[in-house]
C-alpha cells in the first residue's frame, strides 16, 4: 500500500545522493584524464599528479596548510574544551555569546574585521595571523561538541567518584576526562578539517605573505580549470576520508556528534 | 447477523505466524476483549481490524461488508492507542475535531459535537490546553473522546490503561464501562491484564500463540477454563495431575496419584484411563484443622502447611499433600482478634465441592 509512495521517496533520495556525489566523482575521474581540458576522455595518466608534486608553490602551500591546521587544532581544542566545560558547569552570559556568534554569522564578517584588526596592530599578515584567526572560529565548534558530550554524561558518576574519596581534580582526571575524550577527539579533528578547509577567513587574513592550499586552489581555478586542480582535489579528498576513518576508529561516536 | 465477523484470518510475518486461523464474531453493543500474553497475536488482530495490517487470508466482515482490504482512513472504526497518540501540536479541541474535519463535517457542527463529547468525558474546561499540559488520565479521556466523536461502528482500544497507575486504572475502568453503556458503541478491547478483562468485558477471547484458546463470558472463563493455558493465565489456579478412574452420568471419578480419589463433573469425550489435570481455584477450597468428611458431595484431603503469605485481608496458605503436591488455598482473615489461622507445618484438612473443580483432558 505504501509502495507507490516510497518509490517516489526513493527516487527523490537517490537523486539527492547523485546530486551530492556525481560532481565529486567527475573531479576524481578527470584527474586521471590525459587531456588539458575537463571535457572528453582521452586516456589514463598520472601526469597531473606528477606535475603537482613538482609544483613548488603547491608544496609550500600544502606545508603551510598542514602547519596552520596542526597549531589551530591543538590550541582550539584546549581553549574549546575549557569553554565547553565552563559553559556546562557555570551560568555564563558573555562566553556562550562569544563562542557561538562566530559560528552563526557569515564567515566574511569575521574575515574583514580581523583584517582591520591585524592591520591596525601593524602585524604582518601571514601564517601567524591566519592561525590566530582559525583558532578564534574553531573554538566554538570544539566547545559545542564537548558540551554536548558533557550534557550526555551522567552527573552522578562524578558524585560517585567524590563519594568514593576522589578530590575534584582526581574526579575530573579519572572520570570526566575519559568520558568526554571522544568529544574532545571529535572536536580536535573537526578543528583540523575546518582549518585545512577554510578559504574565506584565510583569504582575508593571509595577505601576500602566506599561501595555503585553498588559496592556491582558488588562484588556480580563478584563472582556468586545469586537471592539476583535479589531482590536488582528489588527494585532499583522500586525506579527509582517511581522517574520517581515523576518527571512526578513535572515537566511533565522534562522527555522530556532528 | 453479528456486527463484526472474523472468518478464518491468518497473518504471518516472515516465518512467524502471528494470527493462525482465527474466527470469531462480535455482536453490536458488546464489550469484547482480546486477552493474552504479549506475542499472542491480539495486537496484530486489532491492527487488522483497524486496517493497519492486511490478513494473508480470511475475511473481516463489518456490517456484512468484507473490509479486509479497506485502508484505515476509510473504515468506520477508530482506535484508542496505547500511548494515546494525541497530536502534540493541536489543542484538546483540535485533536477531537480532527476526525470530523477529515470527514468534512461543517464547521459549526464540529463545534457543537466537540463541545458535546468534551462534556461527556468531563474535559470542557480543558478544550484549549495542549496534550502536554494534561495529566495521564485526562489524556486518556481525550484519546477516547477523539475516537468516539464521529460515532464509529467499532471502537478499538489497545491496552489503553497500561500507562496509568493502579489507582487511576480502576477509576478509568469504571468510567469505561459507564461510557460504553452510555454511547452504546461496540468496544473491542485488547489487554494482557486478566483482572481488567474480567472486570470490563461481556465476552473474552483468550488468545495464545495466534489462536483463540477460549471464547466465553468472564465467569465461564474463570470457573471453567478449557485448557491448562487458560486456567494458568487467568487468576491463580491449582492444577492437579490425575487420571480418569470411572465415568458416571453426573459425576466422574479421578485418581490423583499418591493422594486418593476425587470426584468431579464429567467431561465430554473423557475415557477411563485418560490423564489430565483437575483445576481448583484457591478460594473454592475449604481449610480447617479438622473438617467433616461425611459429605458425599465433597472432595476431602489431608495435608500440611508449607508456606503462608499474609496479605492483610486474606492469607494464602500453600498446603503440601501426602504425595508432595502443593495446593494453594486462600482464607479471608475474618476472625476478630486473630491475624491468621495457621502457621507453617500445621496439619490441616482441605475440602471442596465436587463441582468446584473442573477436569481438563491432556
Amino acid at each position, binding site marked *: 500500500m505504501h509502495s507507490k509512495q516510497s518509490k517516489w521517496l526513493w527516487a527523490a533520495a537517490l537523486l*539527492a545522493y547523485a*546530486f*551530492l556525489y556525481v560532481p*565529486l566523482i567527475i573531479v576524481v575521474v578527470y584527474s586521471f584524464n590525459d587531456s588539458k581540458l575537463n571535457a572528453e576522455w582521452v586516456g589514463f595518466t598520472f601526469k597531473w599528479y606528477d606535475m603537482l608534486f613538482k609544483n613548488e608553490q603547491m608544496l609550500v602551500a600544502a606545508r603551510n596548510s598542514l602547519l596552520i591546521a596542526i597549531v589551530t587544532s591543538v590550541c582550539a581544542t584546549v581553549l574549546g574544551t575549557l569553554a565547553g566545560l565552563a559553559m556546562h558547569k557555570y551560568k555564563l552570559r558573555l562566553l556562550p555569546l562569544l563562542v557561538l556568534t562566530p559560528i552563526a554569522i557569515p564567515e566574511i564578517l569575521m574575515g*574583514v574585521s580581523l583584517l582591520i584588526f591585524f592591520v591596525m596592530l601593524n602585524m604582518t599578515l601571514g601564517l601567524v595571523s591566519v592561525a590566530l584567526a582559525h583558532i578564534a572560529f574553531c573554538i566554538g565548534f570544539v566547545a559545542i561538541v564537548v558540551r554536548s558530550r558533557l550534557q550526555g554524561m551522567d552527573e552522578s558518576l562524578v558524585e560517585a567518584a567524590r563519594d568514593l574519596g576522589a578530590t575534584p581534580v582526581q574526579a575530573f582526571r579519572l572520570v570526566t576526562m575519559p568520558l568526554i575524550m571522544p568529544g574532545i577527539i571529535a572536536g580536535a579533528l573537526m578543528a583540523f578539517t575546518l582549518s585545512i578547509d577554510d578559504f574565506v577567513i584565510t583569504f582575508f587574513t593571509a595577505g601576500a605573505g602566506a599561501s595555503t592550499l585553498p588559496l592556491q586552489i*582558488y588562484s588556480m581555478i580563478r584563472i582556468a580549470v586545469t586537471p592539476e586542480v583535479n589531482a590536488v582535489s582528489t588527494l585532499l579528498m583522500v586525506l579527509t576520508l582517511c581522517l574520517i576513518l581515523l576518527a571512526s576508529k578513535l572515537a566511533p561516536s565522534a562522527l555522530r556528534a556532528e | 447477523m453479528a456486527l463484526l465477523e472474523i472468518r478464518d484470518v491468518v497473518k504471518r510475518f516472515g516465518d512467524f505466524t502471528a494470527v493462525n486461523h482465527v474466527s470469531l464474531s462480535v455482536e453490536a453493543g458488546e464489550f469484547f476483549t482480546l486477552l493474552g500474553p504479549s506475542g499472542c497475536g491480539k495486537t496484530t488482530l486489532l491492527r487488522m481490524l483497524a486496517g493497519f495490517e492486511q490478513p494473508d487470508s480470511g475475511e473481516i466482515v463489518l456490517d456484512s461488508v468484507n473490509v479486509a482490504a479497506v485502508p484505515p482512513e476509510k473504515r468506520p472504526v477508530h482506535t484508542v*492507542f496505547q500511548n494515546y*497518540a494525541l497530536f502534540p*501540536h493541536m489543542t484538546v479541541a483540535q485533536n477531537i475535531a480532527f476526525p470530523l474535519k477529515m470527514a468534512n463535517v461543517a464547521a459549526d457542527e464540529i463545534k457543537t459535537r466537540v463541545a458535546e463529547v468534551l462534556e461527556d468525558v468531563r474535559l470542557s474546561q480543558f478544550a484549549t490546553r495542549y496534550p502536554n499540559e494534561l495529566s495521564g488520565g485526562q489524556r486518556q479521556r481525550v484519546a477516547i473522546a477523539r475516537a468516539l466523536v464521529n460515532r464509529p461502528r467499532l471502537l478499538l482500544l489497545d491496552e489503553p490503561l497500561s500507562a496509568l497507575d493502579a489507582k487511576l486504572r480502576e477509576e478509568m475502568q469504571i468510567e469505561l464501562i459507564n461510557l460504553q453503556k452510555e454511547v452504546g458503541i461496540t468496544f473491542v478491547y485488547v489487554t494482557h491484564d486478566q483482572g481488567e478483562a474480567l472486570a470490563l468485558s461481556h465476552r473474552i477471547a483468550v488468545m495464545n500463540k495466534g489462536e483463540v484458546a477460549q471464547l466465553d463470558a468472564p465467569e465461564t472463563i474463570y470457573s471453567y477454563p478449557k485448557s491448562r493455558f487458560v486456567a494458568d493465565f487467568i487468576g491463580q489456579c491449582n492444577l492437579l495431575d490425575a487420571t480418569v478412574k470411572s465415568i458416571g452420568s453426573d459425576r466422574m471419578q479421578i485418581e490423583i496419584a499418591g493422594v486418593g480419589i476425587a470426584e468431579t463433573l464429567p467431561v465430554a469425550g473423557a475415557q477411563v484411563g485418560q490423564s489430565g489435570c483437575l483445576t481448583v481455584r484457591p478460594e473454592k477450597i475449604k481449610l480447617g484443622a479438622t473438617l467433616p468428611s461425611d459429605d458425599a458431595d465433597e472432595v476431602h484431603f489431608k495435608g500440611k502447611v508449607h508456606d503462608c503469605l499474609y496479605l492483610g485481608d486474606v492469607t494464602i496458605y500453600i498446603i503440601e499433600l501426602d504425595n508432595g503436591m502443593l495446593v494453594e488455598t486462600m482464607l479471608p482473615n475474618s476472625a476478630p482478634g486473630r491475624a491468621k489461622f495457621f502457621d507453617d507445618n500445621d496439619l490441616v484438612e482441605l475440602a471442596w465441592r465436587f463441582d468446584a473443580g473442573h477436569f481438563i483432558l491432556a
Partner: protein
Amino acid sequence: MAKSNRINKWLISGPPLLYLIIFFAIPSLIMAFAAFRFPGDYGGLLPLIGPNPDTGANELLVTAENWRDYLTFENFGLFFTDSIYVELFAKSFWYAGITTLICLAMAYPLAWLIARSPKKYRDLMILLVILPFWSNFLIRVYAWMIILGPQGYFSMAINQVLGLIGIGPVQLMFSHVAVIIVLVYVHLPFMVLPLYANLEKHDMALLDAAQDLGASGWQRFWKITWPLSLPGVWAGAALVFIPALGMFAVPDLVGGTDGIMIGNLIKQQFLDSRDWPFGSVLSIMLTLAVLLLAGFAALIGRGGKRNAL
C-alpha cells in the same frame, strides 16, 4: 569553598573568554567604529593617531574642534543614496531565499526516507550525506565549474535539448543559475541534518492515529508531519540562509559580473578599492540582517517548541 569555586570558574572560562574578546569581540567593535571614519589617503582608514606636525611625536589627532574631519555618517548616507547597494542586498536575499527553498525541497524527502529507514542503515545514510561536505569547499565549487563549463557534458546536453526546440545555446557558467546551483550544492547537508534530527523523533503512532481517524496520505503529511517538523525546517533554513547570504567565493567563481552578492561587494571594498569605512558599513548591514533573521527564527522556533514537545 566559595572562593576556590570562583577561582576555578575563572581558570576554566578565562582563557577562551580572553582569546575570543581579543580576536573576535574587539575586531568586531573596531570594524563597527570604522564605519564612522574616513578612508585613508592610500586606502584603509584615515589614522586617528599620527605625528604632531610641530613636535613629530605620535599623538591623538582628533580634538573637540576638528572631530568632524575624522568622524562621519557619510558612509551610511552613501549606502542609502545609491540604490544599487540596496538592490544588491535585495538580490542577495533573493539568492539565499531560493537556495533555502530548493534545499528544503531536496532535503525533505531524503531526510524523511532516512528517518523511516531501519535503524541499522540510518547512520550510514546520514554519513553519506555529510561525507561530501567534508571535502574542501573550493573543490565542491570547482566540480560545478567543470560541469557547467561550456565544454562540460551537462552544458552540452542541455544546449542540445534547447537546440532541438530552437533556442540558441545558453551559457550556464557565470549566471544566476550557476550561483544558485552551487549554493544549493554546498549547503544541502545543513538542511538535511536538522530535518532528519527532527523527523527521526516523530512518533509513528501519530500517523497511524491520523489515518485511523480518516486522514488520507496528503492530509497526514500536511496536518501532522509538516507542522511537527517546522522546528527542524526553521533550523535548517537558518543554517542555509545565513551563510548563503554572506557568501562571496561562490558568486566570485561562478557568478560572473551578473551574479555578484553582498559578499563580493564587501570583499571589493576591503581588498580592491580599499574603502574600509564603506566596507564596514556593508558588513554592519549584513550583520544586522543576520541578527534580525536569527531573532526572527528564534521567535518562531520558540512558538513551535511550545506546542511540539
